[in-house]
């Protein structure tokens, strides 16, 4: 099975810190399949790792690339991409 990737634009006005990072990592963990997130062309980190996600230092307007592999990868990417493009702090 090949890995699916998706590049999205960060909608949260506070970037991927605090609450948005927690919501995202929780959703990635709940997906039950391996998901990674990379900022621009950086090294991908485990998307279920809140520390890894926070340490990316993703800001509002940055682009990140999500990669998922396994059952329901498509749906997982849809869900996560939606989380990232929503402004949770609005």
């Amino acid at each position, binding site marked *: 099975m090949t890995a699916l990737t998706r590049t999205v634009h960060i909608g949260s006005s506070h970037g991927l*810190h*605090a609450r948005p990072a927690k919501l995202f990592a929780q959703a990635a963990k709940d997906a039950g399949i391996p998901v990674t997130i990379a900022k621009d062309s950086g090294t991908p980190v485990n998307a279920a790792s809140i*520390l890894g996600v926070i340490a990316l230092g993703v800001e509002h307007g940055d682009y990140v690339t999500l990669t998922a592999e396994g059952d329901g990868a498509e749906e997982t990417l849809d869900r996560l991409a939606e989380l990232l493009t929503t402004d949770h702090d609005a």
Partner: protein
Amino acid sequence: MTELRGVGIGLGVAQGPVARMAEPLPAPGDEPSTRSADEERTRARDAVAAVARELEERGAQAGGAAQEVLEAQAMMAEDPTLEGEIDARIDQGKTAEWAVHDAFASFREALAAMGGYLGERAADLDDVAQRVIARLRGVPAPGVPDPGHPFVLVAKDLAPADTALLDLDQVLALVTTEGGPTSHTAILAREKAIVAVVGAAAAADLADGETVIVDAAAGVVTTDPSADELERAQRRADARRDAASAPITDGALKDGTAIPLLANLGNPEGAAEAVALGAEGVGLFRTEFLFLSASQAPTVAQQRESYEKLLSAFAGKKVVVRVLDAGADKPLPFLNDAHEENPALGLRGLRALRASEDILREQLTALAEADAATRAAGTGADLWVMAPMVSTVEETAYFTAIAREYGIRTAGVMVEVPSSALLADRVLRIADFASIGTNDLTQYTLAADRLLGSVAAFQDPWHPAVLRLVGEVGAAGRTHGKPVGICGEAAADPLLAVVLVGLGATSLSMAPTALADVRATLLEHDLVDAQRIAEAALAADDAASAREAARSAAANLKETQS
């Protein structure tokens, strides 16, 4: 009984069993494990899971913003990347304790190096690591205790992270061995109206479970109290509770001299509580909350919305808004990201705004628009705007001119620097009003960094040098017929509030929870009394004797009148 002396915050008294805040654990040594790697891994995993569940449980109890923080901490504890790091160390033959300590430390450094918001998460990570290590060792976790019944919390000093987790319903009183009247603990105590004695060094010897009386009015913690003492303390606490429910009147002295009592607010959400507690307006509205979590300045529209909310909440009343006060204890990267050796003496307050004048202009635009919009809607307030950290007459002229450009009717300055206090007669010739920030004025007068624990003892607004400067500003206010407000922590200290009025303050602004005590104390003295009490304090050599002199002057005046 034995009496331990410290500095009391407010006038309250409380009693109950001591619960100590455990000290941080010493770091585990890097010794080879005597267990198998599998055993160590299981120990680490069980401890991590137990801590995560505990954090989640406490989050569910706390609710709200604290729940978010605690749940994020639980996720950090069980972070898969971190787990990998811990396992890798255990596989090298390390103990679970050391593996946890070292793995967390590696992440901590990465976060701390990123600074700002991420740097602050390093403290969260420390807290989680300490909890896991405590669990592995079978000792109580450091941090806020949870004995399962109401308690008197005894700590070195409380960090903001501790107080966020503190279940205030369980805290009967706070006692700290370090920290002064402007420490975080003292500010929290005033904000939440918790009885507190800070800086009581001898409280370090108090044991868990022993009953103490904490008397903030006297600044004393009584150990081994007699039944009689306990009963008297209880009667006082009851009487004070009754007084707090006394009808709310406008702030005034015994002779009827009006001293408006205003609220210090950090965001528009606090308005309802302030009004309920009898605030006659806002004496200090801090605008930093709009900027602190942002990497760039908020838009005019975003600001305007907040200001409109604030002004309509105080329709028809006075609202003093302070323009952005960045720097020193609240750095903002988009205003000033230069490293400074002495940030308290650096590009901060109005100096920083002047260097980024567009931010000041946007803020004034938003304030003027909000003022116009609320007035048009019939919910307008009496908007006053002031600049922070003004240190020269020229800066006063600069700010009042630029504020008037935007149609701000009442433009003033904060007096926080001795130079402004000394030249207050010239400053007030230009500004419409002055508001004295006693915390910074004390820091600059005594040349003691208010964020530095080792010099916390200097940070006492009772110091006669600080009082004399307040007197200069008061006299200048009288000369020019202009209002002089107080908006530092000092105004929340009831007796000091009387002294400040005696020195010429015409309004007092404080945390809303302090209003009831200050209102009651002002009503006990007329203006001549207040001036005499102020004279007694001014004549003292240091802060402690100024406080004592004021106390005995107040007591004598009361006696001669009754």
